[in-house]
Structure formats: C-alpha cells, structure tokens
C-alpha cells in the first residue's frame, strides 16, 4: 500500500523548471531511494514534499490525503519527518534542546522518545548538554536523525545523510537507516552515494535534470549497466 504518492510533480524556481513532472511511489515499510547527480532535483523533490517550496503542478498524497499546498507545520504534524541536507542541527541549541525542538508540536511527555534516541545514539547522551555546534559531523548527523524521530514520523525523508562524512561514519549512518527501517519507519532516502543507497533500497529512482529516467528495485539498478557507468563508477570493469 502506498504511503506517499507523487503524481506529475513540477517545481520551478524563478522560471527555471527544476522538477519536470515526476511521479513516484513510496510503499509503507519500504526504503525508497532517489539517486542522481548534483542539481538533478533530488533535494527539491524532498522540499516540495515537506511544503517548503510551492508546487507548480502535480499532486502529492500521503496516507490517502492530499498534502500538496499544505504548510510545512501541517505536513510535519501528519508524520513526515525530514533529515535535511547538511544536517542543519541548531548549533546554538544544546543536543537535548535540538531533540526537544524536534517535538515542538507535541504536548505529551517526551522522556520515552528522548531515551529511545539516546539508546540508538549513546554518543548523543554523553553530549546532552553540549551545544550542537560543537559536535563532529557524524554526531550532528545522528542528532539530525534523532531530532526528526522526535515527532514519531511514519515517513522519514533523508537528504544526503552520508555527505561529507568519513567512510566508517557512513557505514554507521546506513546501519542506522536499516535500524529505523526495522522499527517500521518508511524511508525516502536521497543519496549521491548510490552504491550504499541501492544496496539497502527496496525501490529506487534515478533522477536526471528534473526527470525520472530509471526505476526499479535496488538490486535491479545496482546491476544496471547504465547506472553502473554513471553513478557507481564501475564502467571500466564493465
């Protein structure tokens, strides 16, 4: 059953069409990845879903309801969380405050959720009172994930979570994505690290200059010669 369904989405920035009518589907419980080069429109797609940029055309439905045209506040409260590109934790807030602000719209007790995040990321617990700006890149990424989880999202969108991180840390991040997946969170993952993303993805889309050029399971795209050549850097070996 599809949790998120995008039909003929078009987005333009000042006359330039960044997304040229894409359709994609995210089923409940899946990891869906969107791969593509810089400027292909991956982040724009996520921003459109979260309500940060207006749609020029198309419809986005989530859990059977049309969410396109709603405010970001409304969309986040429906259960769509976002781990933004570049992490963008609040550096002037403590780690704990960053988690609390992730649950800004909630009025109930946050303790179990905070404990849960700290259990997933013990490093954050140690740094609970530190300003988020003092954390390392990997820790900030964990915090960005933890912050998004505080709203108990059903769908978590992650924008380039591996960007700028050391290989070992990237491995941790992908492990976390799989952990979240096991917790029944549906994941829409945007990545340039196509290899790692396709390995864990149930379904994958290739985005090129605003259009979807390929679609298949993670495995299929991983074995696809064109994908190999363009995104996996394996052309020479064939």
């Amino acid at each position: 059953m599809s949790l998120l369904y995008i039909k003929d989405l078009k987005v333009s920035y000042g006359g330039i069409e960044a997304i040229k009518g894409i359709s994609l589907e995210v089923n409940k419980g899946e990891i869906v990845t969107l791969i593509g080069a810089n400027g292909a429109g991956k982040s724009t797609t996520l921003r459109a879903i979260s309500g940060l940029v207006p749609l020029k055309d198309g419809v986005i439905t989530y859990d059977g309801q049309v969410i396109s045209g709603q405010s970001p506040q409304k969309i986040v409260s429906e259960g769509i969380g976002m781990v933004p590109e570049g992490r963008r934790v609040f550096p002037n807030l403590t780690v704990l405050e960053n988690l609390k602000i992730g649950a800004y719209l909630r009025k109930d007790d946050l303790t179990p959720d905070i404990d849960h995040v700290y259990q997933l990321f013990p490093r954050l617990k140690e740094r609970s009172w530190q300003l988020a700006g003092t954390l390392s890149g990997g820790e900030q990424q964990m915090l960005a994930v933890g912050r998004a989880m505080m709203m108990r999202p059903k769908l978590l969108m992650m924008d380039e979570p591996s960007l700028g991180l050391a290989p070992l840390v990237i491995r941790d991040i992908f492990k976390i994505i799989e952990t979240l997946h096991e917790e029944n969170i549906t994941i829409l993952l945007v990545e340039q690290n196509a290899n790692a993303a396709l390995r864990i993805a149930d379904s994958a889309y290739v985005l090129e200059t605003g259009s979807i050029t390929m679609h298949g399971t993670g495995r299929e795209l991983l074995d696809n010669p064109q994908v190999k050549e363009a995104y996996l850097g394996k052309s020479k070996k064939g």
Partner: protein
Amino acid sequence: MFDRILPYLLAGISVGGQYALIAVGYTMVYGILRLINFAHGDIFTAAGFFMVYLTASLPMSVSIPLVIILTVILGFTVERVAYKPLRTAPRMSVMISAIGASYLMQNLMWYVTGGLAKQYPVLPWLGDTVQIGSASTKIVTIVTPILTILLVIALVTLIQKTKIGMAMRAVSHDFEISQLMGIRINSVISVTFIIGSALAAVGSMLFFTNYSTVTPTVGAMPGLKAFVAAVFGGIGSIPGAVIGAFIIGIAENLIRAAGYTAFSDAFTFALLIVVLLFRPTGLFGEKTAEKV
C-alpha cells in the same frame, strides 16, 4: 572629588538603563530577522505620546498598563504591515521599509500633536526626590537600573528556559529548518516585536520622567544611542546590548562631569566608529559570517 562625580555617575547608570531597554528591542529583532528596525526609536516616542494623551483623561493606574499594551500593538502592527510582506524579499527592501515606517510614524506624530512639545505627566513616586550621599536625585534614577536588570534577567530566562524561547533561538538561526520542526516563524517574530515594544514602553516611562517633554523626534537620539549600544555590545546579543548601553550611558555622563558636555554625543558616535573599525562584531557578537 567623588562627591562631584556621584550625581553624574548616578545619571549615567540611569540613562544607561533606559538605553538598555531600547537596545534590547534592536538587538532581538536583529537577532531574528537580521534587520535594523529603524522604527524602534519612533515606537519609543509613540509610547511617550500615548502616556501624554491617556493621562489626560484616565488615572495613572490605568494609563501605565494601557501605554504598554498600545505600544505593543503598535510594534506588532508595524511588523505585520511593513516587514512581514517582505519576508522573502532582499534584506535591503526590508531596511528601506523600516526607514519608511519610521518617517511615517514621525510624521503622524507631527500631524497629531501639531509639532508642539507635550508635557509628560509626572509619574507618582518615580518623580520624587531622594538624597544619596551628597547627591540629590529623582527616585527614577535609582529604579531604572534595578528595573532594567530585573527585566533583562526575566527576558534571558524566557529565552533560555521556555519553549517559545527555544523556538526564538531556533528561528534566529534557521528559518527553514524551524518551519520543518513545526514552528510558526511569523508567531515567533511577532513575539519578538511584542517583547521589544513592551520594553521600549517601560523605557519611555523612565526616560520621560527625567526628560519631561515629548516631541515627535525626541526618540531619535536615545534610539540612535541604544542602537550604538547594541552594535557596541555585539548586535544580536542581549547581554551585550545591556552592557553596551550602561557603558555608553555612564561614559557620556562622565564626559559631562569632566566639563565637555558638548562632546558627550560625539563620544557615543566616535565609539561606534572605533568599534566598527576594530571589532565589527562588538563585545559579545557572533563571529559567524553573514547568514546565507
């Protein structure tokens, strides 16, 4: 020697407190919108006129809270009308709009008052005289710094400890991500203007108790000096603005004590130039570059 300086020192601390209450409004708005709210000095002046007109027909106990409420409504309205529609516009447009709002209010005040100076009512108790050592002064001189510090502590506590304060800190750093957290940035910005205007209203009561007449442009100078104080302390920083304001207030009056009254204003602005040249981020300013 000390006896001669004491009254100036007291006046300096008092004036510093008044500047501080205005400066906090500048620095908070800058912290969140990266905007110099040029209309802030005029909101301060308007608070003075509100008091003049309200006390003409209402008792003081009603007028004082009403002045604060009206000033808050004015500050809120200026933000909604002149700044909010320009939220996504280049920062220069908002700044021009702020200058426009400032002159609009000044002109409205000219129109309403006919340009005549109005006598500010004497606030009970605050206007009474007390003797401190060898100096005699009004009670307001003593009350101002104490009240200022209490209000600033309350404000800092609000910003550090409450949910709305946390949202203010978040919004001041990143509009877009704050929206993704479910924060209504327009409400947070309104709260900022409400707090700034309320403090300016309190500041105006203290200021005019000393100054006694209100004219449409009377707020320009204290407004400008409070702005210098905010820059000196590091614009965006509340403790910085308060400390900057006290330093400027005291320094101005010590210069008067030394017999250079004519240069006291010049000193403030010379200080601004020196700060901008050698420490553009001020005493406690963020070291970060422009927000992109």
